[in-house]
């Protein structure tokens, strides 16, 4: 990030190589459209380049900053295009947002991230399905508690409890990982 803050384009190139797959997966999970996800990915890395001066290591890691930025942009994009209905239809047709094949030789970074992914998924999958669903709708689709309650036909108080309990379990479950994230 220091290189990017200093205007080094090679540093941006390296950052892109390291994190584009993670950010693209996040965007795809929100908007469920390959072409739109690619366009948004490009816009987000341009924003990273333009806004790098606002990044402060005291407030967190670069990946956290980029994920927060990417999620906000993806959810904004989803809302602007009023694509909820289309996304929902696609969501129902997709069990996984990505094809299985991501065929190339894995780098050390990717292997490390893969191990991290397994651990995180283990924590998330230990939650009851209703808690997983509530968190998924809140995080990846930007839904409010009221919107989740309406969509799942669940009392608002129950949605709040599911979110609180689920997030606490994930937060606690990731204690060992938190320093690495």
């Amino acid at each position, binding site marked *: 990030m220091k290189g990017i803050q200093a*205007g080094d*384009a090679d540093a*941006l190139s390296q950052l892109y*190589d390291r994190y*584009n*797959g*993670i*950010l*693209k*997966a*996040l965007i*795809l999970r929100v908007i469920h459209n390959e072409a739109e*996800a*690619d366009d948004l*990915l*490009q816009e987000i*890395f*341009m924003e990273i*380049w333009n806004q790098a001066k606002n990044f402060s290591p005291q*407030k*967190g*890691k670069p*990946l*956290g900053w980029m*994920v*927060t930025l*990417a*999620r906000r942009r993806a*959810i904004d994009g989803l809302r602007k295009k009023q694509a909820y209905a289309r996304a929902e239809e696609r969501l129902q047709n997709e069990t996984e*947002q*990505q094809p299985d094949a*991501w065929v190339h030789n894995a780098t050390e970074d*990717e292997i490390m*991230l893969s191990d*991290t*992914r397994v651990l*995180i*998924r283990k*924590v*998330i999958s230990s939650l009851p399905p209703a808690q997983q669903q509530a*968190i998924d709708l*809140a*995080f*990846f689709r*930007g*839904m*409010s*508690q*009221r919107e989740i309650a309406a969509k799942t036909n669940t009392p608002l108080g129950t949605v*709040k409890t599911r*979110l*609180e309990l689920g*997030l*606490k379990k*994930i*937060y606690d479950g*990731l204690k060992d*990982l*938190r320093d690495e*994230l």
Partner: protein
Amino acid sequence: MNFEQFQNQSRLYVIGALEPEEVEEFEKARQKFGKKAEDFIAKCYALHEAFALSLRPAKSSDAIKERLMAMVKAKKDA
């Protein structure tokens, strides 16, 4: 609001799931707890990274990077 309740609300806050009427109370508690609150909120943002890292990375086309780097170069040259 005690600190345990604040912690629960913080986890909702960082994923944008607090309702508007809850945000006001949350902000008051945030001020009340000061640095302890800010430190906890910063830790909660690790949830963002965790959710992103829980997904299988997606391949993007090489053209995206080429376009990005061309835009960066144009901006630097301008």
